[in-house]
């Protein structure tokens, strides 16, 4: 009675519409956002400043909300499919744009790095999805790279009540797990010249959710040397493993 989840269903859209109803195909450049990462507080009062934020992902997908309506029903054969809407939140949508491949998104040292050209259909976009994966040597990582063999790597400083803790965090997420529904609000038309920048949002500006909610850096430092390393197996890792998957910490902006 197990069900196969996380799979995609090909969208079978109506055929036979007039050519004038064809959605237009455009190519837009995609890069890692180069904006300075916001310093923010977690729910336990730690102010966190990141000096490293890297994430291994695969296959960026750009979605419109719901199904394509009949007026734009004739679509080229490359239209990909529909992301499963997560029951519980309406973050699904038809995937009408994609940039395939494996990427390491580095929001500190790699801001502005070009990832490639996304194939998009014209339309009103509302979401970004991508898959998590394990970073490998094929990503150009050396044997000493802390991201090697993991999905995410963060480093920075946490401050609270005059105390300053330097931390690193390696995060493991099952390969193939999807991040679904990050914010991406943009009308893309045939003449669109947008440059799409993939954002990392350590603190969700709407609900104030921090990537580090639940992490008490003092509790992680029993020897009091103000140096903390969060690794898989730690309870703090379990907190981070969840928040890293949350769509509220990512977005797409038009640069």
């Amino acid at each position, binding site marked *: *009675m*197990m*069900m*196969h*989840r*996380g799979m995609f*269903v090909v969208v*079978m859209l109506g055929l036979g519409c007039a050519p004038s109803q064809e959605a237009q195909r455009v190519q837009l450049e995609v890069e890692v956002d180069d904006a300075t990462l916001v310093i923010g507080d977690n729910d336990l009062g730690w102010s966190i400043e990141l000096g490293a934020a890297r994430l291994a992902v695969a296959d960026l997908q750009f979605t419109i909300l719901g199904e394509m309506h009949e007026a734009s029903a004739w679509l080229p054969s490359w239209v990909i499919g*529909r992301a*499963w*809407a*997560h*029951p*519980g*939140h*309406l*973050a*699904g949508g038809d995937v009408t744009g994609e940039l395939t491949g494996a990427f390491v998104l580095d929001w500190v040292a790699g801001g502005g790095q070009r990832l490639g050209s996304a194939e998009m259909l014209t339309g009103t976009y509302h979401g970004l999805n991508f898959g998590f994966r394990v970073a490998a040597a094929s990503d150009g990582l050396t044997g000493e790279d802390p991201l090697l063999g993991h999905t995410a790597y963060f480093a920075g400083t946490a401050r609270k009540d005059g105390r300053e803790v330097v931390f690193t965090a390696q995060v493991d997420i*099952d390969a*193939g*797990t*999807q*991040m*679904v*529904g990050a914010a991406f609000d943009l009308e893309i038309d045939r003449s669109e010249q947008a440059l799409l920048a993939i954002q990392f949002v350590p603190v969700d500006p709407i609900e104030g*959710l921090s990537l580090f*909610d*639940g992490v008490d850096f003092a509790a992680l430092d029993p020897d009091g040397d103000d140096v903390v390393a969060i690794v898989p197996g730690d*309870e703090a890792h*379990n*907190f981070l*493993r*969840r928040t890293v*998957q*949350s*769509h*509220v910490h990512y977005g797409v902006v038009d640069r």
Partner: protein
Amino acid sequence: MLRRGLLCVLLAACSVDAGEVEVRIYGEEFIEEGIPASVFADGWSVKFDSFLISVGAVTVAQAGDSPGLAAPGFQVLELARPSLGLGQQIASGRVLAGRQDDVGFVVGPDAAAVASEVSAQELARMTDGGLALYVAGSATKGGVTKRFAWGFPTRTRYSECESVAEVAADREATVQLTIHGDHLFYDDLYSETPAVRFELVAQADVDGDGEVTQAELLAVDLRPLPNYQVGSTGIVDLWHFIAHQTGTLGHIDGEGHCRNTAEE
């Protein structure tokens, strides 16, 4: 009825092949008889005393065609009632011959739902309470028993269900809406290989009265745990985790898949 009548007229006029399709809903042995300890990764077993479901908006079609059968009204049924493996009928009608591989249905609250062999009290529990599902029962491990009685107001549309029912001319075929009760106890929302567990639910009974309540499940913080992963949903407590799983129970003809979409 008018729609069905019109279909019959059209079918006769065109001399096309048609047959009968019957739609049944079935909770399998897991809901009717219980989920044995062998299924659970942590040694618990579960027996449902009640598994009320509000289901409607049933459609049966061949992919690419409009539905040959549509039963929009909602019914409340007791899936824990023994059915000798047959399940319970919720709709029937005459459709064009062929494979009925585009079935849809909704599991959700409906104030106008009608009883299908349930008591007036059970019907009122669902309609007045705005419930899609009501599950009550007990879990046992060793000498410990934990009771539960939970109502869920969630609404899930199951569509594009790939039924294998093949209707032949002047023959009858059955489409089975299959409800998987074990999914309520999965320990991951998106893993391809989740385990079935009850231990965390049992531990939620902090007052030790033997009954695990909604309030106690809401108080369970999932965030420190290595399992009970929630993907992008933002779910942090066990109640909403289980409520989310209610949107994954529906299948078709046993293990067949549907697109499942939460509706607000």
